[in-house]
């Protein structure tokens, strides 16, 4: 068997010649910006090199905290952001330039998130290229797996490409797109679908950015992919290797890339939330340890380990800390970083890698024949394929074919469980803060900048600069999205299952 070398095309064995410690990023955020700011400071003190900002659902869906649809959701699954004032509080006392990577779940509102941090950097007098911002901005997977879509898919795609186009030209140090397979896998897909659907979506963004004159060798090196690390140990190690190989070949063969960095797939791995169980929840510590070993052996660049209590609610501080410690134990005690791609040459791993690669190519070709990713989003193909597999997985667990400890084998009573409590006052505090912002700001300037945004959007031009202008005047997320809804219309829910 002839082995490839780590750090060499097609990068199956890793994008670097030797192994190195990954960025340990834990996902977090809840309540008001003040509460989340305190938690981030605590995590930074504990040695985090990158961190993420979870956003609440109203923010992700472009609704203000005082919107009737936001009732009961403000500050629940992440922090509430209504205006730039909230970002100023969120980042208070946190030196942006010392953080390698701030990640966020802004997708349908990726352009607003980018605008807010551009505005914050300007107010602090910092070049935004001096810190790292990682904007998920992958709106297509929202329509098929994650569910925070706002506009029809064509308009959502246009806005994601606006972010990619603007950042590639102006802030190349930021990640303008995290090509996300994680949510597709969590919604129930196979590993092959996870990679193929994700890369098909990525091709839609790339093709449109290239049509606007962006060079593939300027944009591709700035991208990340965001993948699940699931419980199927060896197939998951192989998946990371196969994904890198497919990406490298896709870039070289289909996009004629000249820059080697374009061909090196940077991976952010996140242990699979759907593999965790509410029953015997301490078992989840064992599951996530194995899942993160798979990611580490698969040669990823950034990692999040899920907290053991995620199947029950927002993680407690104790569980979030244990998840970070799990990463630190694996990285620094086991010697796993001594060798790049240490499992290479194993008969089964190489066979799985080749087999996954071949299946991913077949599915990518099939998607292309169906008209590409946007078409497969709109006609329900992606959604139906994922739902079908999710149903099969449930059936396999319920029939006992797939064994899950504590669920269908070796059941026992679980110990009572300490849960994270959301501060019940967070929602009303946030609504009050929003009211104050609206009273203090220059409302004439807000209106002018919103009209400008409407005009730019109507013209079809890139809306980032117009959004930055509105954000600086403390226009709210809801106002900005409301203005654009007049231009693009609303997404209509699909009722298929």
């Amino acid at each position: 068997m002839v082995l490839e070398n780590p750090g060499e095309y097609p990068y199956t064995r890793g994008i670097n010649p030797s192994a190195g410690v990954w960025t340990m990023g834990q996902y977090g955020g809840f309540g008001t910006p003040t509460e989340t700011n305190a938690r981030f400071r605590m995590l930074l003190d504990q040695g985090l090199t990158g961190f993420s900002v979870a956003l609440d659902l109203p923010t992700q869906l472009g609704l203000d905290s005082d919107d009737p649809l936001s009732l009961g959701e403000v500050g629940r699954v992440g922090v509430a952001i209504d205006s730039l004032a909230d970002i100023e509080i969120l980042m208070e006392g946190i030196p942006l330039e010392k953080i390698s990577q701030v990640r966020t779940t802004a997708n349908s509102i990726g352009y607003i998130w980018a605008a807010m941090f551009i505005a914050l950097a300007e107010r602090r007098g910092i070049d935004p290229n001096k810190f790292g911002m990682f904007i998920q901005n992958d709106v297509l997977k929202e329509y098929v797996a994650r569910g925070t879509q706002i506009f029809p898919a064509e308009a959502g795609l246009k806005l994601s490409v606006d972010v990619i186009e603007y950042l590639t030209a102006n802030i190349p140090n930021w990640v303008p797109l995290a090509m996300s397979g994680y949510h597709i896998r969590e919604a129930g897909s196979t590993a092959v679908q996870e990679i193929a659907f994700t890369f098909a979506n990525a091709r839609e963004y790339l093709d449109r950015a290239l049509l606007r004159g962006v060079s593939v060798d300027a944009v591709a090196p700035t991208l990340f992919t965001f993948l699940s690390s699931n419980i199927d140990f060896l197939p998951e190690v192989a998946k990371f290797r196969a994904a890198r190989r497919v990406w490298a070949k896709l870039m070289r063969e289909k996009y004629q890339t000249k820059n080697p960095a374009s061909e090196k797939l940077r991976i952010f791995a996140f242990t699979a939330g759907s593999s965790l169980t509410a029953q015997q929840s301490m078992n989840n510590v064992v599951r996530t340890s194995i899942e993160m070993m798979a990611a580490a052996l698969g040669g990823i660049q950034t990692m999040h380990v899920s907290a053991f209590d995620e199947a029950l609610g927002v993680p407690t501080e104790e569980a979030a800390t244990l998840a970070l410690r799990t990463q630190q134990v694996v990285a620094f005690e086991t010697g796993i970083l001594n060798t790049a791609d240490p499992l290479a040459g194993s008969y089964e791993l190489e066979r799985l890698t080749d087999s996954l690669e071949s299946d991913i190519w077949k599915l990518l070709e099939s998607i292309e024949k169906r008209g590409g990713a946007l078409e497969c989003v709109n006609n329900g193909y992606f959604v139906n394929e994922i739902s079908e597999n999710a149903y099969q997985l449930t059936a396999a667990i319920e029939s006992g074919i797939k064994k899950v400890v504590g669920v269908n084998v070796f059941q026992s009573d679980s110990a009572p469980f300490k849960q994270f409590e959301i501060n019940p006052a967070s929602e009303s505090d946030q609504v009050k803060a929003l009211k104050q912002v609206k009273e203090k700001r220059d409302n004439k300037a807000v209106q002018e900048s919103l009209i400008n945004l409407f005009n730019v959007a109507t013209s079809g031009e890139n809306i980032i600069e117009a959004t930055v202008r509105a954000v600086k005047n403390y226009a709210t997320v809801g106002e900005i999205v409301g203005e654009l809804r007049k231009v693009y219309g609303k997404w209509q829910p699909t009722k298929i299952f």
Partner: protein
Amino acid sequence: MAQNPQLAPIRVVVAKPGLDGHDRGAKVVARALRDSGCEVIYTGLHQSPEQIIATAIQEDAQAIGLSILSGAHMSIFERILTLLKENNAQNIVIFGGGIIPEADRQALKDKGVGEIFTPGATTQEIITWLQNAVGANSK
């Protein structure tokens, strides 16, 4: 899993209220209910309580199953129950599932929610419960 052919199939609305986009569980339950012989209407994402009640009444549903993983369950279930009362539609059985803490589960049942299924409930448990609940409610 087939129902008694003598009986008309149960009509059930499976709904995703609020802003939560996680519909894997809702769709698996919807499909399992359909496979068991129920007539299932799935609302799709981002439905307001008003829209869900309107759908249930329009579709002449006997039950509404709500899936919520975002933590907004207390506000949403309470609104649904109020709307049922206002529309004189309390004969519709309400059940739900998602990430719902034990204390809230009991509180919701005390308010009139028929059952809350949490992670680990099987589709067969849900089907059996629904058949009994709808049967008992129509007597």
